C-alpha cells in the first residue's frame, strides 16, 4: 500500500482573482503528525479547508490513498476519511456528548439509552474521560476537543486536521492533548495540525511544512528544524520586492501621549495588557491569531467590554475612561476602523453618501432631530472626492463597490468625525493593490497632521512600511516594542511566537 495517505499537487485557490494558496504541493504520510506553520494569511487554513471539503480548489489536484478526489462538501471529505477539528468547535452546545457524537448518523428509531451506552463504550475505548450524558455547553475547552476528536475517530477518519488545537487549552490540558494525538498516531491516523506555537510543532510533529504568502516554502523532518530555521522560512521575504518597499529611513518623533492602556484584562483574550499611543506617530501593532490586539483596541473604542472586576484602566488624554458602547468613544475623538467591514463597517444597501453621513451623525451626543438629505449628499460628495472613492455616483450602494472602495467608505465614515485617535484594524485586508497604496498614503497623512494613529496588521511588510514604532502582542499583551529603524521581520516574528 502507498505510504502517502493524502497529497495535493499544484493546489491553487483564488478568491476574487487573489490567490490564497498558489501552486502548493503537499503530502501526508500514513500515521504521521504533520505541522503546518506560517504567518496569519500564509494559506494554512485555506489549504486544510481544501482537504476538508470546506472550499474547492481553483486548479490543481488532490489524491487520497492514490485516488484523485475533489471533495466538495465536508460530508464528502468525511466519507473519504478526512475530518477537521476547527478552532471554534462545531459541536451543538445544547445537546449531550453522545448526541453530538452520533449527530448525522441517527437511525430511524433512536433509543437514547442505546446511544449513551454506545457512546460510553466508544469513549472508554479511546480512554477519554467524558460523560456521554453531559451537555456539551457545560464542558471545558479540552473536553469539547475530546468530543470533536472522538467524533472524528468514530467516523473512521484516517486524516484528522486540527486548527490551532491548543490555543484555548491550559498547560495540563495541552499535555493531555499531546498524549491523545500520539495515541491517534499509534492507531495509524494521520494528523495535520496548524499551530503558531513553534515549540509545540517541534515537540510533536514528525514533519513540518512552512507556508508563506500562499506558497509552499519548505517541508522537512521536524528533527532538521529549529526555531531559527522555522522563523527564517516564515518571514524570509525580500522587502524590496513587496508592494510596500524597503524599510523606513526615518521615523516621526512622538508627540504627547494620547492613550494609555494600563493592565487591561478581558478574559481569555487580553491579559494584563499595557501600552501607550502618542500623537503624530503611527503605532503598528503586530501579533498572531489570539494575541489580543483587536480585542484590546475594541475595548478602547467601546466595542467590547473589559473584565467586570479589576479590568484595568484606559486613560485618554490623561483622563480615565470606560466606554460601554462606541458612541461616547466616538464623541471623545476615538475612531475604530473595523477589520470586518462587511459586518461592522457599513450598511451595504445604503448609498456611499448616506454611510459617510451616518458617521458624522454618530459624533453628535444625542443624534439629530432631523436628517438633512442635502448635507448628507454634500458631505458624502466631498469625502468621495478626498478619498478618491471610485463609484458610478454618490448614490451608488456600498455593496456595489470593490473591496478597496468599500474600505475607503469605512475610513471616510470614521474620518468625518475628526478623531484624534484613529485605530485601523487590518486596513488593507481584501483590498486591491491600487487602493492599498492610497490607503497607506492616507494613514501617513493623518500622522503627519499630528493625529495619533494605530495600525493593527497581521502582515509584517505592511507593519514595517507604515509604523514609526511597532508593538508586538503575544498571548494577550504587548511583549516587545521596536522602533521602525531597528525592527527586522525576524525580530518581530521571534517576539510574536511563543
Amino acid at each position, binding site marked *: 500500500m502507498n505510504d502517502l495517505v493524502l497529497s495535493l499537487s499544484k493546489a491553487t485557490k483564488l478568491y476574487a482573482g487573489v490567490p490564497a494558496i498558489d501552486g502548493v504541493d503537499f503530502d501526508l504520510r500514513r500515521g504521521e503528525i504533520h505541522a503546518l506553520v506560517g504567518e496569519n494569511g500564509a494559506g494554512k487554513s485555506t489549504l486544510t479547508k481544501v482537504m476538508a471539503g470546506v472550499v474547492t480548489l481553483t486548479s490543481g489536484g488532490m489524491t487520497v490513498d492514490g485516488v484523485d478526489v475533489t471533495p466538495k462538501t465536508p460530508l464528502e471529505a468525511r466519507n473519504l476519511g478526512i475530518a477537521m477539528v476547527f478552532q471554534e468547535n462545531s459541536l451543538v452546545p445544547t445537546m449531550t456528548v453522545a448526541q453530538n457524537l452520533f449527530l448525522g448518523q441517527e437511525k430511524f428509531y433512536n433509543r437514547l439509552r442505546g446511544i449513551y451506552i454506545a457512546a460510553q463504550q466508544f469513549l472508554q475505548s479511546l480512554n477519554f474521560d467524558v460523560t456521554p450524558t453531559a451537555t456539551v455547553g457545560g464542558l471545558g475547552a479540552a473536553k469539547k476537543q475530546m468530543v470533536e476528536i472522538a467524533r472524528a475517530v468514530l467516523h473512521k477518519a484516517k486524516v484528522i486536521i486540527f486548527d490551532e488545537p491548543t490555543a484555548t487549552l491550559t498547560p495540563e490540558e495541552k499535555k493531555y492533548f499531546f498524549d491523545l494525538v500520539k495515541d491517534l498516531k499509534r492507531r495509524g491516523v494521520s494528523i495535520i495540525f496548524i499551530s503558531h506555537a513553534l515549540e509545540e510543532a517541534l515537540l510533536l510533529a514528525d514533519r513540518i511544512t512552512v507556508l508563506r504568502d500562499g506558497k509552499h516554502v519548505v517541508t522537512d523532518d521536524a528533527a532538521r528544524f529549529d526555531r531559527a530555521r522555522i522563523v527564517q522560512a516564515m518571514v524570509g521575504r525580500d522587502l524590496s520586492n513587496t508592494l510596500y518597499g524597503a524599510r523606513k529611513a526615518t521615523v516621526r518623533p512622538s508627540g504627547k501621549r494620547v492613550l494609555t492602556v494600563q493592565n487591561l484584562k478581558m478574559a481569555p483574550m487580553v491579559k494584563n495588557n*499595557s501600552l501607550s499611543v502618542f500623537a503624530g506617530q503611527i503605532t503598528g501593532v503586530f501579533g498572531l491569531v489570539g494575541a489580543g490586539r483587536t480585542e484590546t483596541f475594541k475595548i478602547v473604542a467601546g466595542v467590547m467590554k473589559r473584565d467586570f472586576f479589576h479590568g484595568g484602566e484606559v486613560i485618554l488624554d490623561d483622563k480615565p475612561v470606560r466606554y460601554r458602547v462606541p458612541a461616547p468613544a466616538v464623541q471623545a475623538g476615538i475612531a475604530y476602523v473595523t477589520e470586518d467591514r462587511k459586518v461592522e463597517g457599513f450598511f451595504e444597501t445604503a448609498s456611499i453618501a448616506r454611510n459617510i453621513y451616518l458617521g458624522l451623525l454618530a459624533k453628535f451626543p444625542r443624534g439629530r432631530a432631523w436628517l438633512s438629505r442635502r448635507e448628507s449628499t454634500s458631505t458624502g460628495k466631498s469625502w468621495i472626492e478626498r478619498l478618491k472613492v471610485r463609484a458610478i455616483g454618490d448614490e451608488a450602494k456600498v455593496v456595489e463597490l470593490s473591496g478597496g472602495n468599500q474600505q475607503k467608505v469605512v475610513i471616510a465614515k470614521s474620518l468625518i468625525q475628526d478623531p484624534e485617535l484613529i485605530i485601523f484594524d487590518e486596513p488593507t485586508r481584501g483590498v486591491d493593490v491600487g487602493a492599498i497604496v492610497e490607503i497607506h498614503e492616507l494613514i501617513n497623512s493623518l500622522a503627519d497632521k499630528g493625529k495619533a494613529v494605530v495600525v493593527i496588521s497581521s502582515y509584517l511588510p505592511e507593519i514595517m512600511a507604515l509604523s514609526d514604532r511597532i508593538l508586538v502582542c503575544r498571548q494577550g499583551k504587548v511583549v516587545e516594542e521596536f522602533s521602525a529603524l531597528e525592527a527586522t521581520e525576524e525580530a518581530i516574528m521571534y517576539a510574536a511566537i511563543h
Partner: protein
Amino acid sequence: MIAAISEFANRFLGRGEAAITVPSFDGALKPNQALEQAEILLACEAPEDLATDGTSLFLADGVRLLRLSGGTATIVRSFERPISALASLPGGALAVALGGTEVRLYDNATAETPAATFSQGLRAVNALAPAPDGTLIATDGSSLRGVDDWARDLMELGKTGRVLRLDPKSGAVTQLASGLGYAFGTIASNGNVLVSESWRHRVVSIAPDGSRKDVLRHLPVYPSRLSPANGGGFWLTAFTARTQLVEFVLREPAYRRRMIAEIDPEFWVAPRLRSGHSFKEPLQGAHIKTMGVMKPWAPPRSYGLVIRLGADGLPRYSLHSRADGVNHGIVAAIEYGDDLVMIAKGPGRVIRLPLASLGGEGLA
C-alpha cells in the same frame, strides 16, 4: 450620595481610583541598559546631589562637599549635618541645604560664613535651583517628615510638600505652592517653575500667580530632580519605578498602619533605592511566559531612570538600569562638559555617560 455609592462600587470592582494599575515603560521610556554601561566616576558613602558652575563639578556626599575632577575627588569643606541639596548660582555662589531643615548661601564654595541663611519652617528641603531674578527656588518635600523619612511620608500618603522662593537680599521665604505629594526637584522655566511631584508621578508647572498646569502625568516612576539640558529641555531623574504591589499597599490603610508600627522600615512594602540584598525583602509575585515555559519573576523594588525632556516637556528618550542592573536610585543628573554625570544613590556611585553617545535610537 451618588459619589459615595460610586466610590464604594469602584472599591468593590477595582475601578477608578481603586484600579491598581501602573503605566508601561514604552515610547520614549522604552527600557534599555544605558545606565549599566555608564562609567563609574566615584564610589562613595552617601552621594546626594550634584552642582556645577561650568568649571567645577561639586558633589554632596554626606556631610562633605567634594569637587570632582575626572575620577578624583577633593574635599572642599565639611558641614555639621548631611547635605540634602546643592545648587550653583551665577557668579560662583553656592547654595546648600543641610539636613533638609536649613539652607545656606555662600558667595563661593570655600567662603567661611554664609551670605544668607534660611531655616524657619523648613523640614525636608531636597532640591535647590536658581531663578532668573536672583532668588533661589527650593522644594520642601514634606512638612511632616524629614528627608531621610521619605518612605514614611509615602506610606502616610503625604500631601504636605511645598515649593518656596528664598530671597537672599531680603531674607524672605515665599511659598509658591503647597499641598504637593512630595515635591522633589525644581527648575525655572520660561517665567514658571517646574516641580516634580513624586507621589503623584507628575511634573507640574507653577506660574507666578500660583496656578498649576501638568507638564507630564501618569509617569511609571517616582520623579525627582530636574536640571537644564543643552539645546533646550531638561534632565529628569526618577529614583525608582512604580509597582502594582506598592500601589496596592497604598490603598490599604490598615495594612500600612500595622506595617509602619511593626516592621523594620528596610523591609516595608515600599519603593527603595536599592534592593535584592536580603531574603526578608518583600517580593511581588509575577510570572512571564517565554519559549512556552512559565517562569517566575518578581518586579524589583528599585530601578534607575533618567529621562531627557524636550523644551515642550515631552520625553525624548530615557536611560535605564533595569531589574538586573545595579545603578538604581538615580537622584541627580547634570551636564558637565561633554558628559552627563549622575548619582546612583542605591549602590553609592557617581556615574558618567558621554552626551555624544545619547540620543534615543540605538540605546542598547
